[in-house]
Every structure is written in structure tokens, then in C-alpha cells.
């Protein structure tokens, strides 16, 4: 029984061009929140539309704006209104929402970071092996059934 090799080759060969997802990190400096958006390849998410939502009114935009050339945006959250904020970055249908909680520490940062290349390749190989194992399982069932008939 042949094991399909092509998906594994693609999984490893694809690593130089992992880019498309969005990463947003935030940092609280003093009273201001500083948000930085970038794509997976490290390119800044410049001129992305930013929408800030307060925890007190999560469906109404508190503030809107645009990231600068470096993908950065800053705003001053009203702590009286809420300690929890959501910030959405959006550009041509791509984007990310980060949740910011101001109550945990004087200075804080968070967001969605990037996987390393090794992590990505390992995860891809695991998933591809899962698919391949499924294929082999059903193929072997068919072979056994054909052998009996």
C-alpha cells in the first residue's frame, strides 16, 4: 500500500511563505493602550481600520480610527466606563479582535503571537498524517473485504 507522500512534501516546502493571518498585540503604558497589527510575515498592518468597543456597550463602537504606517494605533480608554475593551483591526476582510482587560496589572501586554516555523511544520505534518492515516485505514478495510470475496 502506497503512502501518499505529496502532502507531506508540501507541508514542509510551504514554510517560507507562511503569511496571511493577522497578529495583534497590545500594551498598556500608563493610561494609554497601544495596539500593533501585523501580518504573519511580519509586514505591518498599515492603514487598517480600527474599531474600539467598550465592555459597557459591546455592540456600539466607542472609537474608530486607522493604524499608522507601522500598524500602530493608540487610544485612551475610559476606566470609569469599563475595565474591559475589545479592539478590532480590519483590512480588506482580514483582521483580528483582541480583548483587553485593564484591571490586572499596571502595565500589561497580550494578543496573538506568531508560531515559529518549526511549530508550524510540526503541526502541519501531524494533521497531514492524521488525514493520511484515515485514508490508509479505509483503504485497508477495502483491501480486506476484496480479499475475502
Amino acid at each position, binding site marked *: 500500500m502506497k503512502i*501518499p507522500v505529496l502532502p507531506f512534501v508540501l*507541508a514542509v516546502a510551504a514554510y517560507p*511563505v507562511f503569511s496571511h493571518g493577522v497578529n495583534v498585540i497590545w500594551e498598556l503604558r500608563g493610561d494609554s493602550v497601544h495596539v500593533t497589527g501585523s501580518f504573519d510575515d511580519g509586514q505591518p498592518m498599515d492603514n487598517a481600520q480600527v474599531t474600539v468597543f467598550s465592555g459597557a456597550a459591546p455592540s456600539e463602537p466607542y472609537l474608530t480610527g486607522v493604524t499608522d504606517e507601522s500598524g500602530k494605533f493608540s487610544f485612551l480608554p475610559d476606566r470609569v466606563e469599563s475595565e474591559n475593551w475589545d479592539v478590532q483591526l480590519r483590512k480588506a*476582510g482580514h*483582521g483580528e479582535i483582541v480583548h483587553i482587560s485593564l484591571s490586572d496589572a499596571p502595565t500589561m501586554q497580550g494578543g496573538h503571537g506568531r508560531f515559529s516555523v518549526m511549530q508550524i511544520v510540526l503541526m502541519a505534518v501531524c494533521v497531514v498524517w492524521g*488525514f*493520511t492515516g484515515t*485514508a*490508509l485505514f479505509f483503504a485497508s478495510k477495502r483491501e480486506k473485504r476484496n480479499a475475502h470475496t
Partner: protein
Amino acid sequence: MHIPDGMLPGEICIAGYAGTAALTWLCVKKAQNTYKEPAKLVSRASVMAAAFFVVSWIHIPLPPVSVHPILAGLMGILLGWISFPAILVGLFFQAAMFGHGGFTTLGVNALSMGGASLVSWAVYRLLRRKPGEKAILIAGFVAGFTGVSVAVIFTGSVLILTIPSYIDTGIEISGILAMAVAHIPVALGEGVFTGLIARFLLKVKPDMLV
């Protein structure tokens, strides 16, 4: 074009899930009634889902955007009714492992790319009625081209029609249209690739073409 979480209103996400559930049920039912050995297609679907998982993740930079192949057309002509559930599974793993596409938008993404595979397959079956290698080459090309085009048009339309009122509509529409235009080379490339694969399979293993 995978739509991430947070881009679509809740009602659209729910409608996407409802549509995907209905189509999945329909495709599985059709597969059971149409194919003599549906299990034979499951092993092929697993390999194709793996290829979809990996290939959708190969991003081609076309400044200022980046695009990726979809393989909807090829999956349609190789898997038929099973292509939709196979793409759904691939999309789930992409969202789970890499956050490529969202969970709330999984239904809409499945309708986009899975639906594109079914449309491609239908177009392919129409065109391949003519015998011969040339006809298969053309049918395969059109299927591959259609797969990307339908997915891009569907996704772009959903994004444009659901732009929130607090977003600058002009900027967002321009960005989405730029992404759509950037997929034209991808559609042509997939068309050529699918056509060549279809012609090759016609020669060596014609029963693989559904």
C-alpha cells in the same frame, strides 16, 4: 479567501452554519445513493483534504496582498459529492491549528469553498460530455478556474454586503476588490493545473475522475 472570526454579523454566521449543515447532509446522502463504494472515496477524500489543508496555506505574495490556491475545482472533479464535507474538515483543521479562517465563520467559509467545488464539478460534468483529451483538458481548466472564481466572488460579496456602518465602506470595498483581482492569476493557474491533472488521469486512471 478565509474569513476570520469577528468579520461577520452573528446572523450571517448562523445562516452559514445552517446552510453548511444542510449541504453536508445532502452531499453525504447523494454520495451514499450515487457511488457503489462510498468508502473508496473516503480514503481519497482524506488525502485530498490533506492537500487542501496544506495548499491553502501556501501564500503567494502579490503586493500589496497575498493570495493562496484553493484546489476547489480539483477536489470537485476527484471527489464529487464528497468534496464538500472534505473541504469542511480541512477548513476546521485550518481554523483549529493556525487560526486561518474563524470558527464562527466556518459555515460561511465552507459554503464559499465547498460550494465552489460542487459548482466546479457541475461545470466539469457538463463540459466533459464531449469525448477526447482536449475536451477533458478544457473541462478541467474551466473547473479549476471556476473553483477559485466562485469562492472569491462568494466571499467578496458576503464581506461587502456585511460591512458594518462604522467602517469606512469605500476603503473596505476597495481592499476587497483588490484582493479579488489579485486572485485572477490564481484562478488561471489552478485552471491549467486542474486541466493537466484531468487529462493525465484520463490516460492512466480514468475511474478517478468522478
